[in-house]
């Protein structure tokens, strides 16, 4: 329906007399984002958790690696808020350290995914034609593997360990990034300003860098936020089955794995890491949705 034009008029061209505001685009985004209550709350929770995790060595009371066996698998108490694990270590402290590892690992994984997916997606999306077909066929092949099986085989090949697991997850997520970037780049390629740039003689690499990239940041940001959530779950899954982080270090996933073994003796042990994973992933997803709603093309106009 042609509802848009007249209704949006009051908001848009208020430019003539007002002083120059260079950051108006970003201001508009912030205003829209602020209105998304849930996303703002999710962002706050994530910031809090990240701070708590990163600063864990300075504020937690116990040594994450040391404990006394006499305290093993005790329930929550004033001294140990979430109880202790099978080696008598404080679960809450280990959770903070675990969250630190999990978050770091997710960032690495998404970084790897982006390093592979972003350039390839840009090339495929902007160049189109045969280049696009070739890249996308490889992409399809990668995406047709069950992700966890692929991760297990990559880790099996590279050897167990957190870094390798993260690289594996990154490789698995790269095709998703490629798809998102390619789709967005294809849409931007059709915009008249790209044709205008070609008309002015700008070479392809310049057009991609200066026109395409800035205009696909929105979907990219949304994808990053959602992928971080997936990466945390993927890390947890790999660590749960022992392919990720190696003892004595712990991530939320490996802690959940340990807790699982003692589910009958100390059911409370599993609650901490489980809930933490849930809250982080949920927050990332809500944040991603919020970003999508305030960055989307429709919201921009």
């Amino acid at each position, binding site marked *: *329906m*042609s*509802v848009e*034009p*007249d*209704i*949006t*008029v*009051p*908001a848009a*061209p*208020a430019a*003539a*007399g007002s002083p120059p505001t260079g950051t108006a685009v970003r201001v*508009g985004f912030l*205003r829209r984002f602020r209105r998304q209550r849930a996303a703002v709350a999710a962002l706050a929770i994530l910031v809090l958790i990240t701070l708590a995790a990163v600063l864990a060595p300075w504020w937690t009371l116990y040594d994450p690696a040391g404990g006394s066996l006499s305290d093993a698998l005790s329930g929550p108490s004033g001294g140990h808020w979430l109880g202790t694990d099978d080696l008598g270590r404080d679960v809450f402290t280990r959770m903070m350290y675990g969250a630190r590892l999990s978050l770091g690992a997710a960032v690495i994984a998404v970084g790897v995914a982006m390093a592979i997916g972003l350039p390839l997606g840009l090339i495929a999306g902007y160049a189109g034609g045969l280049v696009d077909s070739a890249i996308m066929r490889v992409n399809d092949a990668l995406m047709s593997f069950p992700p966890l099986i692929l991760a297990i085989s990559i880790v099996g090949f590279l050897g167990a360990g957190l870094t390798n697991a993260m690289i594996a997850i990154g490789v698995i997520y790269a095709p998703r990034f490629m798809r998102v970037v390619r789709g967005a780049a294809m849409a931007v390629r059709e915009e008249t300003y790209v044709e205008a740039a070609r008309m002015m003689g700008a070479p392809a690499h310049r057009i991609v860098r200066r026109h395409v990239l800035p205009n696909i940041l929105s979907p990219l940001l949304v994808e990053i936020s959602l992928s971080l959530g997936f990466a945390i779950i993927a890390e947890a899954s790999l660590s749960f089955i022992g392919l990720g982080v190696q003892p004595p270090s712990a991530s939320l996933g490996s802690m959940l794995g340990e807790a699982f073994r003692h589910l009958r003796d100390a059911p409370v042990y599993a609650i901490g890491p489980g809930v933490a994973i849930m809250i982080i992933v949920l927050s990332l997803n809500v944040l991603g949705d919020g970003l999508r709603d305030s960055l989307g093309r429709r919201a921009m106009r």
Partner: protein
Amino acid sequence: MGLSKPAAGPLLEIDRLSVDIRGEHGVARVVDEVSFAVGPRETVALVGESGSGKSVTSMSVLGLLPPRITRTRGSVRFEGRELLGLRSGELDRVRGDDIAMIFQEPMTSLNPAFTIGEQIAEQVRCHRGVSRKAARDRAVEVLDLVGVPSAAERLKAYPHEFSGGMRQRVMMAMALSCEPKLLIADEPTTALDVTIQALVLSELRALQERFGMSVLFITHDLGVVAEIADRVVVMYGGHLVETGRTAEVFAAPQHPYTEALLRSVPQGDTTGSRLWSIPGAIPTPEAMPDGCRFHPRCPHAKPGVCDADEPPLEPIGDGRSSRCVRREELRLSGIGGDAGGTGALAAEPLGGSVLPGGDRK
């Protein structure tokens, strides 16, 4: 066609309609106390540039404005029945049954997943409750009516298989399938080529004659207004600024904005001369000037008069009204009037143009 006689009662009566829209810069009044009526069998054109409030006015008639961000006041009566504040179920019955609407972009108004036939039949069944077969026959009938060749076969076609002009005719067929008493057409020919526009307009005229329906035609193209409208309502900055019979308004406009619009259209041989243009830009609802809303761009504006009080909309006889305090002193030129004879070109607009240079010499 011809000029309509003022019949017993108007079909559609809009009375002091105001619409507030909440945008990013706060609440803005985009339609301000607009009143006009559409009589039976009459075609009324609602004219204005983008931002004048013409589309919002037409959408508020059918309750198509998003209620979350708009507030509508005043009254919209159809056959004496108040439409504002009707529950959506009741409105649905009015929409399509008594009042139909067609839009500028027929592609976005048609569902790409269903065939043309299915969509028209659905419309018919919805409002008439007839059998599937009867609805299908009716679809063929209306497609035939609006000049879609080999209508029976085209029923199975999807919207993307039609060209722009054909899609607009399909939209018209859909709108007409229930023989509405009033058709609201929002820039229906703006996206079309002139040749196709001429076809669609003549089709519309023929249909109107046949069904005796009324048309509220929203457009910014004065040429189209001249071709189709019995009466014209000119809007500027959310206000109604002038209304009257098309021929009379075009021959002797009573508001400088109408004059400016008419003169902005190049007519005849203008080679070598500058086109008449209105300096500056239409004001936004947040920055409405004091006094007459048009005065900063008006070549006839007089300091101390036009920038002081908001001029009222005054009836000037013969169904005409104008919102200009200097109306009686001015000799505004309409079509066929001599181009520079009113001294309009020499006058400087109050407050100067919003953009320096370029626009006037």
